[in-house]
């Protein structure tokens, strides 16, 4: 199975971006379809930016912050969590499957968890897009854990 779409992952500077660095240090391997964008906090990402990414052709958008209670800015991730409901509702109103958005938490010491989250998202989106034109030959986004 080949899959050519890209996923935007907004990673917060303090936890998930650091986990992504650590994933590299630990040489964990994941799909080439993830594009990480560093933000200062998961609470910084506006719902409009999630929609913008999907409108521009992203297969999915991930928002990855620190675990609840561990936000570097006290409660940014809680705000992100509250906002996620709005995002999901809006997506559905606009005709996007809610599965295209994922909010999750990863600490700076959990690279395995981050990579797992990437794998899950890709598998979910691949299911969603099965049979659609995004499945093409070749391309950067081959699944690592394909069976």
């Amino acid at each position, binding site marked *: 199975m080949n899959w050519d779409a*890209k996923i*935007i992952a907004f990673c917060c*500077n*303090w936890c998930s*971006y*650091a986990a*992504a*660095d*650590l*994933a*590299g*240090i*630990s*040489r*964990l*391997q*994941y799909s*080439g379809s993830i*594009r*990480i*964008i*560093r*933000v*200062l*906090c998961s*609470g*910084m*990402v*506006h*719902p*409009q*930016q999630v929609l*913008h*990414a999907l409108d*521009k*052709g*992203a297969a999915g958008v991930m928002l990855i912050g620190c675990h609840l*209670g*561990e936000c*570097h*800015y*006290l*409660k*940014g991730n809680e*705000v*992100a969590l509250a*906002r996620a409901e709005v995002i999901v509702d809006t997506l559905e109103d606009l005709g996007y499957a809610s599965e295209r958005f994922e909010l999750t938490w990863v*600490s*700076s*010491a959990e690279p395995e968890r981050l990579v797992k989250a990437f794998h899950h998202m890709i598998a979910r989106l691949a299911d969603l897009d099965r049979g659609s034109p995004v499945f093409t030959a070749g391309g*950067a986004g*081959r699944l690592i854990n394909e069976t």
Partner: protein
Amino acid sequence: MIGHNGSVDMTASEPVGAVMVIGGGISGMRAALDLADSGYYVYLVEKTGAIGGAMPQYNKVFPTNDCSMCIIAPKLVECGRHANIRILTLGSVLDIAGRPGDFVVRVRQKPRYVDTEKCIACGQCSAHCPQSVDDPFSGHIAGRKAIYIKYPQAVPFKYQIDAEACLYLSQEGKCGVCAEICPPEAIRFDDRALEEEIRVGAVVMALGFQTFNPAVIKAWGYGVYPNVITSLQFERYLAPDGPTSGVLHRPSDGKPVRRIAFLQCIGSRDKHHCGNEYCSSVCCMYAIKEAVMVKEANPELEVTIFYTDIRTHGKEFDRYFERARSETGIRFVRSRIHGVEPRGTRGDLRLHYISVQGRQVEEIVDLVVLSVGLETADDMVSLADRIGIQMTPDRFAAISAFMPVHTSREGIFTCGAFNGPRDIPQSVIGGSAAAASVAVLLSGARHSLTRTASFPLEQDVRLREPRIGVFICHCGTNIAGVVDIEEVAAYAATLANVVSVERNLFTCAQDTQDIMGQQIRDRELNRIVVAACTPRTHEPLFRATLRSAGINEYLLEMANIRNQNAWVHGFDQQTATAKAKDLIRMAVAKVSGLRALHPLRIPITPSALVIGGGVAGMTAALNLALQGFDVHLVEKTGQLGGNALHLFQTWSGEHVPRYLDGLRSEVVNHPRIAVFYHSTVVEVAGHVGNFTTTLRGDSGRRKTVRHGVVLITTGAKRYIPEEFEYGKIPKVVASIEFDKLHMHNEARVARGTSFVFIQCVGSRNQERPYCSKSCCTHSIQSAIKLKKEAPSRRIYILYREIRTYGQRERLYNKARELGIVFINYELHGPPKLSRERDGVLVEVWDHVLHRPLQIQADVVILASATLASPDASDLANLFKLPLNADGFFQEAHAKLRPVEFHVDGVFVAGLAHYPKPLEESISQALAAAGKAGCLLARKEIALEAYVAQVDPGRCDGCGLCIEVCPYRAITLVEYEDEKGVVLKSVVIDQVLCKGCGICQGTCPKQGVDVAGFTCAQIEAQVDAALDDTVAEGT
């Protein structure tokens, strides 16, 4: 000229505000940087042609497996470009005259034969030099030219001539080709040695170590059989930038290696062959690391480590060992091998040993790696002798556990492996601790000789079109081994606004910083993209480069093509190359829209809050007070002393209670220290430079203190054993209880004839997979005392690994000489205890006699674990600090930032960080105080540059952002426009704002966003990531 202060005439009472650091390894570099950052001018004397010491030779460092060069390169550059550090390479100290506060040091610099002012390090000289010699940097496994640089990232990045190898210098005028072709005419064959007298207030000896030369013992076959190599040579074989580009082959025939044996304790713990009685402390970990690295790269390899005891006593070391043992397939064999023999004529090697089961075993391998120990070089011992400082019998600087960075000569300090074999974090801690101790001696002379760095005028880029320079890092082979850099560079040149693309072997190296500066000036660049590793570690370095080249440091964006690309797509070059292009395109898109930022600078509250009144807390508090800062010392109980109240002696036999009394009275009587007893921290506000902390006292009374920094020294607690019938049989006691019984010669001890110590009680198990570090030494000391009191006593120590690391090994040897019996229970399980009339029956398997053994014990002493303080998690929450899986505070970086956190202005020391003996707690406390002092000495601090800003044109004053702001930094204001219409908007307090951007994520009008991460900039990145109008290369 006398010193930096030259003509300044100083009266005898005023100390000189300059310091000499001898030794440019990681410890000396750390001391130099801390001193230079806290107001002292530093002379850094390095005996070779470049600073860096041993670290640049390593491939990776344990236990993080960080690339060694990647973490040290920024420090090299920082030293090299610091306005208050003068590096004297090829230097040696002849003698030191004078007194503390005012020394005159005579330094001799050997000729370099290259004019460093002129050399542009183009390398043409080296390319044309006809003379090759063995390269000591590579452990002599490769050659270098007679004119050379020590290593590719060397600081200073200037060539030097090896006079012995050079044909012109050694054979009277033969050759001289380098002088003929050198473009800037930098060769100086008539260069002469230079002697200088330098006036300084203090001296730090960071003389480092050399690795043991195994050729002196014939049995290892080193230098005889080519397939016997040292661990340092192995390190160079593994290094991607090493002579074999990271490919391992047999030195004898170049064939692939199939079976490797690591032999431990070569030149360590070996009184009889080489006189090095001590344990070198680092070899077990580096051997495991090397084994893991080679095994990961070549899974089919058979790797065996033959060891005496596995000494993985540091933080996260035991986990590293366990992973290696259970997951990587590396075989660990407990056996000391006494020689290597050849087998056949094809280079194979035979090892012969006795297994733990007592059987004779022979093994054939094709590569033997000797894990060589650390020792002090002869010329360093003679330097110590010339200066008049005392050394230990093991030839390390003699220090007191209570003053771990003071030599026997006042005003002369010491750190790093010269103080005894130690690893990188211990050396870094030592460097900072030495700097902190110097700062006490020279507190009156702070800022008297330093100069302020001046930066060129910043160019105003607001009205200019973006002119972007892209610098793409090979990171040795870390990136270039996976990503097609050439293709990526060609692609980057096609992107909008990009006017220059450079490829560098190491973008973080000093020479690249110079190139970057040059490019910025020559090509009028006004924005920079660095495609390399992660901004989390390297952004500060590149920002400094931008600043010194005259553009605003925030006009920089890093594309993380190593950690988040080459390393995670290591097996897929096509994907990694395509993604590298995307990441650079995204970075270019973002940097195009960046604006210059100028963070607000505010004054610092020049005082410290120290939480925890144990030895670490008191040491830190006293050091800061003596440096001239006010200290609030918070202690939750009614007395100072912490866990040290239960200790009687240090490993070196120094009396703890007497020391504690002295320290306590100094702390209590110091006018700058306020002690708050029965107090805990309940609330924290503010940030680095200006914290406001609320303490709750005994009666519930609250008090607020203001301070610029925080030191966490909350200690640890002891494990109360649940095993070995503890609490059920009165003759089973924990070691600190036993110490008290022993001191009072209580009946159980006085009449006892048989004593059993059980090690690792509660440590190194599934629940707590870490070593408590001090218990082996503690039990052995108690055992020796018991035995000396009555030699007829039978004393047994039941252990898993004896970890008397460093010079503590003498205690272990002493114990065995006295006839104390050591029984290893690792293989056959823990001993069983039962009550037997008036004693205890201990049943254990004798690992030497290979049969079960019953011991009638009068007292059984349990060496119980050190546990993280239960208060740690509350404090961690209050200050937003991470804890590790065992509940100890997690420092910012295990190797190079061992007392700091990612949260600025907060530091950690002592048992709160990890179990450790007193000497190490004191050292770490001094280091933490030193780092805190660096900060407080600055007087003002730059606030976060990434703060929210309001666009009044868009903001309509709806106020949604006010509710969500966690820092209450936003307020609603009303104002009148030109026509007198009342409008509403918000204003943001630039001091309170932390830049989280929750307002930005909330605002329905895009009326507020965080500089450097604006909605427009993030959207530009998204667009660039998804932009497939440019075909991806194949």
